[in-house]
């Protein structure tokens, strides 16, 4: 087992026993479910909306070469500097380079999973820049020196009291149980930072090819402040964020809001098409768009799983996943947790190191049923399992399944397992649940059914 797999198991063992955590997440998601269902009901036909969205993203991903160039050309025509980064390191260097050139001291950020993916904050801080996250949830986890717990709700694992304590210790504000007051504390703190910031870094929800626009969606308006107050704006875009047409937003934005957060539409939806133009009163003087691959074309080369690039990072597969609900976001140890993370992380960061995530699933399919762009998530987990075994089978598992095939293909041998099983269950209570128990993985927490006096096949034989 790899180190990350061992860590995953250890963390899962600890957190699944934490009933406070379980209750907290289930309560939060129950509220989400109620809101989501109320908004879903506003769609005349959610299933055909999903189909249309899947087709839009299919078109985008299967013609990425065309749409990316169109997107870049349109942006450049209005004075945007477009950069191309193959790897995380290249993306970091490009962004650090821009910050250095601008002699920046303070960088303000709006929420971006792509920047989490390349560990941009670490890199910026190591290079001497002060970095401030402006999304409230991200701000909180940044103060805690944690990674986001969820791709949409970064601080959903925390309660008011914990946030109050955090602000008290880190910002010196008086403790309060009032959510509005907690928000105001962050707001007052962040307003100063917006004004001081030299560079604003954002992510991108949708990269609109036909108009060359970056669409950014936030609930706090922090994206707009990040994108308009600092003199330099940098947007990091994973290349799969492309959508062909501006009109596609008419479906995708309400869809993202509905399935992601149970909202009709997110509060602030902005489109950026370039730096400040001569006739415009405000906006950044410079606008840089960094288009990043970082393993996405590798996933694209896998025809079976290419649709995983349709993902619009709504987080709905996390919300409905019984695994996520029980182990929480941090246990995964990945930038993208939950089902979609378990599917794509092996492609982005190495199959053999991250295959355990594809096995840590009951394959219940709730993720696939929820996905607004119809990614066949749980079948991709199966394919990752097959690919991992093809690449490097686990020796004892291979022996076990060779034996499995050997026994089940020989009816007399299968028949023999019944008396042996009956004999075994006489002695089993002596070792049940102990390290000597071959069925310990099951029996440590569950009882095994007993083999009755007559199995079905024995009944069937007796009947004839």
């Amino acid at each position, binding site marked *: 087992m790899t180190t990350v797999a061992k860590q995953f198991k250890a963390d899962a063992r600890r957190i699944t026993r934490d009933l406070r955590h379980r209750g907290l997440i289930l309560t939060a998601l129950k509220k989400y479910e109620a809101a989501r269902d109320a908004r879903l009901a506003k769609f005349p036909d959610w299933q055909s909306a999903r189909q249309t969205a899947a087709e839009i993203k299919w078109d985008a991903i299967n013609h990425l070469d065309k749409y990316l160039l169109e997107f870049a050309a349109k942006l450049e025509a209005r004075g945007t500097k477009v950069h191309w980064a193959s790897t995380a390191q290249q993306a970091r260097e490009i962004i650090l380079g821009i910050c250095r050139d601008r002699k920046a001291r303070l960088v303000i950020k709006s929420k971006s999973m792509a920047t989490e993916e390349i560990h941009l904050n670490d890199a910026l801080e190591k290079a001497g820049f002060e970095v401030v996250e402006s999304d409230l949830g991200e701000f909180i986890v940044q103060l805690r020196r944690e990674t986001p717990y969820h791709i949409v709700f970064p601080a959903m694992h925390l309660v008011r009291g914990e946030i109050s304590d955090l602000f008290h210790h880190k910002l010196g504000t008086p403790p309060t149980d009032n959510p509005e007051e907690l928000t105001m504390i962050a707001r007052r703190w962040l307003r100063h930072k917006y004004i001081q910031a030299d560079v604003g870094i954002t992510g991108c929800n949708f990269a609109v090819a036909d108009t060359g626009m970056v669409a950014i969606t936030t609930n706090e308006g922090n994206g707009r402040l990040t994108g308009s107050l600092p003199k330099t704006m940098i947007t990091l875009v994973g290349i799969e964020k492309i959508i062909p047409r501006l009109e596609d937003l008419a479906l995708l934005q309400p869809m993202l809001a509905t399935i992601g957060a149970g909202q009709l539409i997110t509060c602030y939806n902005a489109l950026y098409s370039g730096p400040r133009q001569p006739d415009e009163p405000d906006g950044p003087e410079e606008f840089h768009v960094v288009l990043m691959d970082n393993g996405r074309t590798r996933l694209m080369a896998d025809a079976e799983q290419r649709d995983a690039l349709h993902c619009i990072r709504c987080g709905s597969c996390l919300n409905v996943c019984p695994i996520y609900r029980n182990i929480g976001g941090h246990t995964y140890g990945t930038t993208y947790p939950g089902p979609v993370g378990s599917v794509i992380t092996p492609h982005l960061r190495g199959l053999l190191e991250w295959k355990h995530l594809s096995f*840590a699933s*009951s394959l*219940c399919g709730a993720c696939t049923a929820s996905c607004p762009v119809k990614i066949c998530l749980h079948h991709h987990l199966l394919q990752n399992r097959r690919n991992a*075994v093809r690449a490097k089978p686990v020796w004892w598992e291979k022996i076990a*399944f060779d034996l499995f095939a050997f026994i089940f293909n020989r009816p007399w041998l*299968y028949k023999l*397992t019944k008396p042996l099983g009956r004999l075994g269950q006489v002695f089993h209570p002596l070792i049940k649940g102990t390290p000597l128990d071959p069925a310990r*993985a099951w029996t440590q927490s*569950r009882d095994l059914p007993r083999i*009755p006096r007559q199995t079905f096949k024995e009944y069937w034989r007796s009947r004839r």
Partner: protein
Amino acid sequence: MNVTLFIPCFVDMFYPRVGISMVQILERLGHTVDCPEELACCGQPAFNSGYWDQAREVAVHCLRRLNRAEVVVIASGSCGAMIKVFYKELFAGTPDEKMAHELSAKTWEFSDFLVNKLGVTDLGAKFPARVTFHDGCHGLRELGIKKAPRDLLAKVQGLELVEMPGPEVCCGFGGTFSAKFPMISTAMGEHKCGLILETGAEYVVSNDSSCLMHIQGLATRQHKPIKSIHLAELLAHT
């Protein structure tokens, strides 16, 4: 109709009453029942664990034997999904691919077969109890079975169905997952048991013995007052 029953290995071994009940019900409805003795496993454990070669070795026997049947009926949504949905993927690109598609078309999960193939919902069953129904994930999401078992339960005399909050939430079994990640599987099972207990039902019913094996195994260990019964067994009560 000549119905060929596929009795999955764990149903044969641990839950023979489920198979026997299916035989009784189908014969009562006037059908001829056959059950190929040489078949035991559909190959799903190996398939789900990534060992597709070994899965194919086992599955090919089921495929060739079952394909001779007029219609195949299965007591489990999970094994049903394996044969109906995943064989097509497992045998893709092999000489048996066409056969996998043919078998898929004539394979039915038990409740789906009764309601949507035979058009029967009232089997004259009596079961005076409050029950709640657990949707097994494979039956629900791979095979799209949601209504059929409820239609059958609605016609059972004396039975009261109380839906739990979250009948579609996974019980945490997931085959080899339950042994590979017992801590996660157990936490999921505990959550499911909680949902079942909220209904105050005497029985939890499902069309999949594998889910019930997990739920019951956990409930018994934790002394939770949950009794489980497979839909076929319940329907055989007259």
